[in-house]
């Protein structure tokens, strides 16, 4: 019988207590145990970036962390940003600049960009390219994602 471990994790400001197998990936935990389906799984080997979340504020791949390792930690997923009725300025910018097509990689990109813009509120185009180059997008060719991040940086720094 597999070992079961009790964990207590704060996800988007809600505390969850669950018993999990050590091998349960954090991405699966977030999606299937907590029902937060905004975090997507594209490769499960840390290359595509779709499952990027914030782990104690740091953007990380949730497919390369076990759920047990989140015990006592704070996690933010895309659901912590805006809602369809009240988009986060970053999400607004992605809508306005057509920064997404199928939208599968988008939550991972947003969760990569949120802390990036906090650290670097006025990034250059090259800095944006590099910041998101761990997130693969098959649809957009990235041009409009970069424009979206630029637009978001303007929005967010002007306090809109």
């Amino acid at each position, binding site marked *: 019988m597999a070992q079961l471990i009790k964990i207590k994790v704060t996800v988007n400001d809600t505390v969850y207590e669950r018993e999990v197998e050590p091998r349960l990936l954090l991405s699966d935990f977030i*999606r299937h145990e907590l029902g937060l*389906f905004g975090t997507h799984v*594209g490769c499960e080997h840390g*290359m595509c970036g779709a499952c990027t979340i914030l782990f104690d504020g740091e953007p990380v791949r949730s497919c390369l962390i076990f759920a047990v390792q989140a015990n006592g930690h704070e996690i933010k997923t895309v659901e912590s940003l805006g809602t369809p009725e009240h988009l986060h300025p970053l999400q607004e910018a992605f809508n306005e600049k057509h920064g997404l097509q199928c*939208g599968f990689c*988008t939550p991972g990109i947003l969760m990569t960009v949120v802390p990036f813009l906090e650290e670097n509120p006025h990034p250059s185009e090259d800095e944006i*390219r590099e910041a998101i180059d761990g997130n*693969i997008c098959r649809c957009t060719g*990235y041009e409009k994602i970069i424009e979206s991040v630029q637009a978001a940086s303007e929005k967010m720094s002007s306090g809109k």
Partner: protein
Amino acid sequence: MTGKYFGQPVLRLEDKHLLTGRAKFCDDIVIPGMLHAAFLRSDYAHAIIKNIDVTEARKHPGVVAVYTAEDMGDYWKLGPLQVPPPFAIKGAQFNARTLPPIAKGKVRFSGEPIAVVIAESRYIAEDACEDIIFDAEPLPAVIDLEKAWEDTSVLVHDDLPSNMAALVKQESGDYEAAKKQADVVVSHRYVADHVAGAAMENRGFVVNWDERTQEMTVWAGTQAPLPLRSAIAGRMGLVENQVRVITPYIGGGFGPKVMTSQADDVLLPWISMKLNRPIKWIEDRRENFLATTSERDQVHHCEMALKNDGTILGFKDIFYHNTGAYDPYGMTVPLNTQTHTVSNYRVPNFYTEIRMVFTNEMVVTPVRGAGRSEGVFVMERMMDLAARELKMDPVEIRLKNLLKKEEFPLNTGVIGQDFVVGVLDSGDYKNNLEKCIQMIDYEKFRNEIQPKARKEGKHLGIGVVTFTEGTAVGPYEGARVTVGNNGKVSVATGYSTQGQGHFTVFAQIVAEQLNVKVEDVRVITGDTGHFHWGAGTFASRGATIAGSAINSAAVLVREKIFATAAKLLDVPEDQVELCEGSVCVKGHPEKSVSLGDLAGKANPMRGAVEADVKPGLEATAYYAPPHGATGSGACAMIVDVDPETCKVNIERFVLVHDCGTVINPLLLEGQIQGGVSMGIGNAFYEKMVYDENGQLMTASFMDYLMPQATDMPKRMEIGHNVHPSPLNTLGLKGVGEAGALPPPPAFCQAVEDALYEYDLDLTESNLNPSLLYKFKNEATKR
């Protein structure tokens, strides 16, 4: 044509749910009691199955069932031919060998499913797969296309005399006679490398058989929900309306998701019915590489006959096309290649021959570009070869041979993937190229920028190519437009969507016709419970084929609105007009009825409707084109090559295209840019590699390199030409694959130009620094 909504950069309606993580994808479907499937796949590419022992796997705690071909009894039978053979072409030979649902007797590619485990979780299902003992006798693998065509010592299908899957010849004029007239004949061998669709969301399938209602519901990330519905119903012995296929949000398609009758959609419905439990299968990335279809992989032997002034007299192309271990998707890909070698230049005499080969690899079906990429690649490379031979500028030789706009409509004489003779409907190919070289400052680059760079020891090069994109093929699509009692409009189509923005562009078409707000139009795609006729998402046909059907249905609804409103408001029909969300009497805006109320009146609950009047403000329409509409374009790029490391940076990228009338310029740019990234990936990063034993060496993103943000051109510009297609009322042509087509040949030409000290001859569509290094070392230094 632009209107209030049509032609405008309307922001996407689907974004809000996607951006906030609220959109429902396949793996987000949860049904109480749901079980999870995992497939055991063969490690061998070619082997005789001796024994599959599942005893231990069945005992594994949490495992509900394990099935092999043996357990399927009569249900095991070969799959259908999803696309029929091209017997419209005289003399075409085709050996149909369709997919088995699960291997029986023999495995023919590494990754072929041999057993399926159904368990309480995917984790447990994968554990139990490891408990299965698979005993097989490995056979040599068929991998090399050219060798496999001749060599009969190892056969993928023992019952055939050779590895020939198909042989198709098409010709026009007399190539051999033209060759005799020629001043110069150039010939070459080119390789179009194997690439993956690699949508970010892998495939997925959830099925629930409800014994009490005798209905099966399927959620699948498919590009072809209706063919999938029909295939499942046919297999299961159900009538179509017992099976409802719903496509949730889909994380990209790019071609491979058009395939049906694979292990998942054949086996899982049967298992769901057998166990009376919902089943979920979500493909993982390694499975996606091993066992989802992929494309390209052709070897061409081309010859071109020309006059000294660069005029093409004739073209000959014999090419080997890898179809993989089976050919359930017919010949769509190589037929597209055949079509696209001779589609933008005037080629009075040609002979092309497809030699389609079975190999011990996963099946080949369309991937964005779908045979066009290969055709464009070899033809553009041949133009460069001829230009070099004739010491002509690559632009000059193209301008000389491009078809003129006065020549359209032009019968190409080649039967394409839609089994009708190709007709180029419209466009101005020369102007595409002229605009393109103007945008990239071709003259200035040649006369100022490049010479200066060379003096400074920099290696800048330019590549300029042209292309056509055969789009919007038949058979047909349909749609139903309905005005609801709340005044909002719903559109249902059998078409399915994978991120192209159909929820928005289809709404724009309807909003324009009915003068309602775009956000008041709710589009339902790919749900067979809502609309059950159609073919599927492929060949850049959504906006054109489904869009035209939607437009027709909207026009019918508008007519009905006018008729119903005129009667209600007691004025002649020509006296009513659409105000936003209502119908009013011309000149008397106070005399109006809202669309919602009108919809209610059109569906009376008492009294009698007049004969021939159908209830509701609703109409259904279909659109079927006589043949495809052909988009066109030109592309140029400037590269900076480090000759020592062979690393290449794309400094500038220009693409001019013509897809006829534009519905939404914002989304159009997105489509092109996305295609371009795939084209650049194909040119310098992405390549599927099978070793000589049929092992796929690139089954992860560690080895199959997807283009990243930092790999894209530093500057990308897109120019538009608009030559509406005469084939449909809106003047539309497709654009989905355009961007993916020209980058590989443009890249080759630009790199050759950059490394001007070498007599470089690039013959592969996918380069990488190491391969470029090899080409450079083999070239003579000028």
